[in-house]
């Protein structure tokens, strides 16, 4: 109880402080490097082809994680991310099958708009009905899973080869795939302007403390709504990414992307209670989660163990986060 403690901690080292403030930016990339090193160690013939399939496998998941991250940072949750990916994916696959490249690009813009509209529907229902977001997005998720099956009964459809090569091709060296470039570009194009603008501040603010944000003059409802719109938009990018990397529409993709996307967000340092976390951590965590079953195949272990390991990892990471917070609280 000293008077007027200056909010000052000049003594703390720059890098340590950076790591503490942006845990996702430091921890997860290190973790991924470790995983890659292990992968190369157990599979010395790791080639550019493996890197490419990793990037292609991880891209839709990373976008699912990005979609979930925006909503969770704002203090909500979106259990319809996977279904929105499925709808946008089959929509693209069904309409692009006989289109040329130019039409396919135009169609993807339309699909992005539809994704944002689905997110907007989530947001409107959550804000106006005052039904908990878990319930709302779980049910809209069911609806959209049904819609996806109505559009495409079973996996199929397609897109022009030139369009698919945007994701499946490589860039400059065979190690850098189009999927990686597209992922980085799309996340950067959507997220950086948001994060730099007032909207980014508002998303973190309402996720951290809705009441304090409201009293600070924030329009909480509008911000929540926009978080779901962004979630829908990222999901649509994921849906298009899924067709680019697999070549077909998969109406049943929903459940995997909802759950693993949420897992990647948590693993990437996004707090489920909102207000904390960034975009880099979840995206990198999606790579880690994609790498696990690959490593198990290299090790000749049933890849279904992947889920067990994935779950264990999440528990450990979340526990470690809690431990750090506890130690810091003790120190004070």
């Amino acid at each position, binding site marked *: *109880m000293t*008077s*007027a*403690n*200056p*909010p*000052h*901690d*000049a003594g703390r080292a720059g890098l340590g402080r950076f790591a503490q*403030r942006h845990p996702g930016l430091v921890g997860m990339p290190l973790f991924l490097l470790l995983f890659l090193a292990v992968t190369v160690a157990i599979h010395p013939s790791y080639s550019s082809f493996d890197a490419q399939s990793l990037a292609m496998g991880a891209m839709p998941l990373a976008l699912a994680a990005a979609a979930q991250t925006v909503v969770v940072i704002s203090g909500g949750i979106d259990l319809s991310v996977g279904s929105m990916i499925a709808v946008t994916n089959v929509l693209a696959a069904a309409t692009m099958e006989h289109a040329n490249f130019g039409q396919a690009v135009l169609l993807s813009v339309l699909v992005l708009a539809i994704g944002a509209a689905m997110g907007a529907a989530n947001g409107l229902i959550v804000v106006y009905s005052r039904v908990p977001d878990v319930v709302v997005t779980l049910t809209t998720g069911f609806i959209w899973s049904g819609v996806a099956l109505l559009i495409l009964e079973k996996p199929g459809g397609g897109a022009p080869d030139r369009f698919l090569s945007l994701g499946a091709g490589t860039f400059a060296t065979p190690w850098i795939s189009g999927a990686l470039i597209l992922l980085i570009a799309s996340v950067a194009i959507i997220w950086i302007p948001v994060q730099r603008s*007032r909207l980014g*501040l*508002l998303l*973190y*603010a309402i*996720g*951290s*403390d809705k*009441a*304090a*944000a*409201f*009293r*600070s*003059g*924030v*329009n909480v409802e509008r911000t929540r709504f926009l978080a779901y719109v962004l979630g829908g938009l990222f999901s649509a990018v994921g849906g298009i990414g899924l067709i680019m990397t697999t070549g077909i529409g998969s109406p049943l993709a929903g459940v995997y992307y909802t759950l693993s996307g949420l897992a990647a967000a948590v693993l990437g340092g996004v707090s489920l209670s909102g*207000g*904390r976390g960034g975009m880099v951590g979840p995206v990198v965590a999606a790579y880690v989660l994609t790498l696990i079953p690959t490593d198990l195949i290299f090790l000749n272990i049933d890849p279904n163990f992947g889920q067990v390991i994935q779950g264990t990892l999440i528990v450990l990471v979340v526990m470690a986060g809690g431990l750090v917070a506890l130690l810091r609280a003790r120190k004070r």
Partner: protein
Amino acid sequence: MSAPEILLAVNGLAKRFGAVVALRDASLELRAGEVQALMGANGAGKSTLVKILTGVFGADGGEITIRGRACRFRSPAEARDAGLVSVYQDPALVPDLTVAQNLRLARAPLDAARQWLTELGIADPDVGAFVRDLPFQTLRLIDLARALASDPSILLIDEITASLPADLSARIFAIVRHWRERGRGVIFISHRMAEVSVLCDRATVLRDGVTVGATETARGSEERIVELMLGYEVARAAADTAPTPGQPYGDAVPALEVNHLRAGRLLQDVSFALHPGEVLGIAALDGQGQEELFDCIAGVRDRDGGEIHSHGALRRFRHPADAIRAGIVLVPANRLQAMLPQRSIRENVALPSYGPLSRWGPIAMRRERGRVENAIRRLQVDTRAESELRRLSGGNQQKVMIARWLASAFKILLCFDPTRGIDIGTKRQIYALLRELAAAGSAVLLFTSELPEIRLACDRVIVLFGGRVVREMSAAEADEATLLRAAHGLVARREDAA
């Protein structure tokens, strides 16, 4: 001399929440270059008024004009744009954002905020620090600096000096005076009468949601303010009932003895003894440490210092179950914290007796039913809606919360504001029950926010102010006026006069 401009005029403001009328007819007038105190006892409607002024709630009736223009704010942002900014008792800062981001959130200019922080004694503030890492006092100053930086013509300050050290309070007063000199208006809410008479030009007093008067705060106006807060009810309360005569306890071992208890920001140093057969009342305004006191004794939270003895033994409870095992039970202020609203009366009453997990096997229904029925009968609970507790009236729910402890055995009953929002008939029944329990040898600690009721139920009362006991008196002396004065710190501290 021309009259100063009227910055803010509030006329006949009304607000109800369901059946509860928070504001009936609130009015006030703030002049340019004036610091005005807004005063009133607990539940008089001060905070509702502030929240309507800053756009947190809409009003049901009445009007607000700023410089003669009618305003109706739908959000704090709109109020801010009209030049009206509030600093709340708990800082409205978002924990996971940095100081600079919080300033941007409220569109407060960074340089101005820095300058105000310097003036508040925080030279060279680190605006990149996360709010969650900063001590509470600093947050209050940042919240104030943020409000000042947006340069409002009307500043509302709600209880900012509570639990701040004197030197900081002095700095805040200097800034408030500066604000006045610039021809702005300040509405200052405080329970500390001394501060009000030093700092404020006038005081507007609310009682039961009605503005009952405005008075100049010259020397000696404290009595006038207390009178306004009390109103005509003094006479009525005094005639109410004859208090029970206090019994001498001599050297008997107290049921509960609290020594220099300290917890959190609010509970500073409280000591008292509670004897078997006694109902000890606690009178205090909101936030004087009474919540922490009850939570510590009931094992809901751990203390930061001091001792708790019950029946002669030093106790340290790590969990409410420890306290219950020691015979100390709590009826909390918020019934919802303790009850299972969707379950039946019987289950709610029987719940605490399921305590030890080691007791396996089926529940002895017959024995349980007997005990529960006995407790319900004693309390005259209306059992027409017994299958779901939530369908009972508030008063009956509260009775069930007490009944559950009757069905178990306890030695010390802690009641935290058990009659808030309960009709007068049920109140009487609850107080009669507390008396009956004491007569049977239990010790009862009762906090009530309704001061006139202290005499109805208690033998003795202690008054808390600023986390300390400032006054102890017998129920006979404890009329509302005396209690209210003491609760505002208008008496010399009992022993540790600082």
